[in-house]
């Protein structure tokens, strides 16, 4: 079973903490991969918060294709970070030849464009990169967005950490929000894109479980937005639902839970907002999930949240100190990175709540 975890901190945190959080849950996953998304970046990326960074894993040919597309679109590279990879023998990793983390300035024609237009450009460019590199699997474009870095790799998470030098803590490569997954591959073929966390336009989700309504979720989402593609994993649907609800419809986060796990009809009838809740259930019936899931998500404003399916069939625990909040599938993960916290204040979210962490690290529990 996949293990998932997330860290949100007042101070910048190195991904080694996320690796430790996940490593202690090692018995719960099968070492078939590790992925993480870092948001609200510090260190070497701190000066480029407004400019988009491309996260790419590719072959030489893929890199050429990507450079061609970005160049043609008018993007100008302003910064590049190439991780010092440790290609020592014996590591369990199916590494790609190149890992590219490049920050770009927008094309000149977009200099005065509103944010929304720039965002659409970034998404369209990433989709174009993905499509171009999909032929012959020459590369994988995970994210192209300001203040975000995505890393996904196939292999043993510990070895992946070693490969990228992520075990050695430093202040050059840090973030305030890190979401991570150690993977239990339940697909026959290991697909790089299928690894969580998924990212789209500032939104991140990762999940632990199965989505039994995958088919109807997917069939519905596929026509909602051209960026809703891939569906390599049944959990990708959660990202698109979040994105659709929060960005496209402009609804507050609290309604996410109402969409994916609607209240029983009888309970809705007792509520004052029954008109709204009924309308939501009707209109978005195909975004409901019925399966066992814990979903961790992040919003563009770096709000971090976690919620579960309506039957609470997957575990998750939230531990917190004054400076850091961590979500983990198993409590041993939090014990590892926050041994001194007051574990009596740990939260085990129930089937009807969302636990939300804002940028002051205030922990809110919203009842559905």
């Amino acid at each position, binding site marked *: 079973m996949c293990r998932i975890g997330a860290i949100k901190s007042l101070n910048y945190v190195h991904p080694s903490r996320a690796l430790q959080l996940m490593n202690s849950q090692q018995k719960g996953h099968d070492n078939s991969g590790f992925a993480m998304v870092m948001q609200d970046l510090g260190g070497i990326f701190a000066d480029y918060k407004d400019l988009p960074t491309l996260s790419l894993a590719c072959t030489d040919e893929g890199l050429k294709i990507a450079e061609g597309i970005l160049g043609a679109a008018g993007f100008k590279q302003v910064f590049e970070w190439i991780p010092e990879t440790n290609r020592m023998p014996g590591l369990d990793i199916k590494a790609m030849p190149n890992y590219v983390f490049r920050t770009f300035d927008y094309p000149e024609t977009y200099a005065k464009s509103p944010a929304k237009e720039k965002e659409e450009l970034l998404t369209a460019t990433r989709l174009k990169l993905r499509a171009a590199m999909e032929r012959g699997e020459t590369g994988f474009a995970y994210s192209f967005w300001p203040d975000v870095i995505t890393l996904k790799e196939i292999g043993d998470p510990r070895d992946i950490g070693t490969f990228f030098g992520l075990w050695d803590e430093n202040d050059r490569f840090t973030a305030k929000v890190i979401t991570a997954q150690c993977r239990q591959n339940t697909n026959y073929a290991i697909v790089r894109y299928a690894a969580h966390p998924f990212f789209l336009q500032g939104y991140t989700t990762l999940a632990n479980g*199965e989505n*039994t309504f995958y*088919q109807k979720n997917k069939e519905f989402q596929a026509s909602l937005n051209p960026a809703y593609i891939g569906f390599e994993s049944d959990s990708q649907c959660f990202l698109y639902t979040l994105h659709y609800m929060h960005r496209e419809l402009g609804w507050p986060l609290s309604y996410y839970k109402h969409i994916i796990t609607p209240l029983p009809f009888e309970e809705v009838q007792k509520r004052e907002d029954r008109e709204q809740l009924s*309308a939501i259930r*009707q209109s978005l019936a*195909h975004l409901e999930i019925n399966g*066992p899931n814990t979903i961790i998500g992040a919003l563009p404003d770096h709000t971090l949240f976690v919620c579960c399916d*309506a039957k609470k069939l997957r575990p998750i625990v939230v531990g917190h100190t004054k400076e850091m909040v961590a979500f983990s599938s198993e409590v041993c993960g939090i014990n590892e990175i926050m041994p001194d916290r007051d574990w009596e204040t740990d939260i085990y979210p129930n089937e009807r709540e969302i636990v939300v962490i804002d940028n002051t690290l205030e922990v809110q529990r919203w009842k559905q």
Partner: protein
Amino acid sequence: METVKINDLACNDLPWKVIYDTTRCTLCGSCVAACTFGAIKPRIERRRKAFSDTETPEPKISFKAVPVITQLNVLKHYCRGCGVCERVCPNSAIRSERNPDSRFNVVYQTATASGPKRGGRNNLENQARTLDTLRVGRISQMTDPSLDAQRHTFDCLAPLGRILPADRLPFTVGPDGKLVPTGHTPPTSWIYPVIIGDMSIGALSWRMWEAVAMAVAYLNEECGLPVRMCSGEGGMPVKLLTSKYLKYTILQIASGHFGWNRIIKAMPKMIEDPAGVLIKIGQGAKPGDGGLLMAAKVASHIQAIRGVPKADLLSPPNHQGLYSIEESVQKMFLSMNAAFKFRVPVAIKVAASATSVSVFNNLVRDPYNIVGGFFMDGIDGGTGAAHDISLDHTGHPIVSKLRDCYLAAVAQGRQGQIPLWAAGGLGKTGNLAADAFKMICLGANGVFTGKLILQMAGCLGNEHSRCNACNTGLCPAGITTQEPTLVRRLNPDRVAENIVNYFLGMDQELRKLMAPIGNSALPVGRSDCLVSTDKAVADRLQVQYVC
């Protein structure tokens, strides 16, 4: 010796033969009294008997006139094989048997210049049903656990009413971060996904109608199942229209417009809104013919409800005054919505047809947001009369057409906006839960059924042309007749009890199917749950093929 008149009708020309055993018969007369078709009658036969009344055999012959029961070889009174004679005979002396050598289809037409008409069961459906080649093949396991059908709660409700896409919901975000409604949304109700299909009060006896209404009220008020029934064309008694039970009934307006004058007159006195309005454009079971309520069934109360004389009443297969989708949407839907002040969902019922996807595609783009449901009726089913030729050779199966409509909605990202309801041969094997579940997985929001309700009531018919006399007014079970003596055969309390029990059983079964796939809400469109053992079916419906 009598001359053979080859063109005379013989019992062997008829579809059923009455088998009679004089040695068991006590001549009680029960069978003759009970046969509603007058297919048997008492007759005197002259019997020759050899006997001896001495110690050494001295055969003598005696002739005796013996009363017996015989079958009539009269077209008007042909035996329908209902088996009522066998039911009432205390000595098992009589029964009907299917006649494989029947010349009925030929002799009927040559004698009457008309094809036979009958209640709506087709005879030609002798291959395996499509639904029976489908199985629920996805069983949730450790990673996606199945549910406990007894312990978990399930939300078995389906929408009736136009559903706006989320981006058109009239909401704004209030100062407290809550969504606030700022406008009108079309009326929608969430009801049980199995509706009692439209059978008119002319087609059914008043006791049957009463029984169905009772069952529905009981299911709603005592069992918590919001089951709805549909009135069928033909109107409703004013007493029911002005009762609180109207809220469980979907009023049908159809091509004959029967009873609508009364409904409109009753509106000011209605204390409840109806559950919905169903505009019947086409029907599945009597395709091309329309339902034919024979004059024999137009009893005085039917005349009163429909406002018609005692004459054959045809519900034409289509609305004679509507020739386009725009017209139907504007004229019918708008007026029907307006009549109930836009509080009641208005749905449309069409026949499954090679063209029904086009109709559906047009309606999902309806700019008035007024089509509250797309009811599709397939070839199997029905209680009204139609010609044999239509029943046997016209019509469209429902399963693939439902799937086509759902996939058409998927292609446009409009699934669920007009709820899909489908019927036509569902529950034919007696297991409606399985059929409903499979249809829902294929994309239906819910299903409706009529014929099975008759079976619950004790209908003696079967799928092999037994009885099929719903149209004659001679229903031997008292279900589809207005003949007072026959109607009394039906015990409405028992019928209501049967319907309630069946629905409760079916509801359990529905949960038993939802549990293993791990769903607590209806699996609309979850075709990934289904597998088919028939490659052609699998390909056509886009489900997995298994063998």
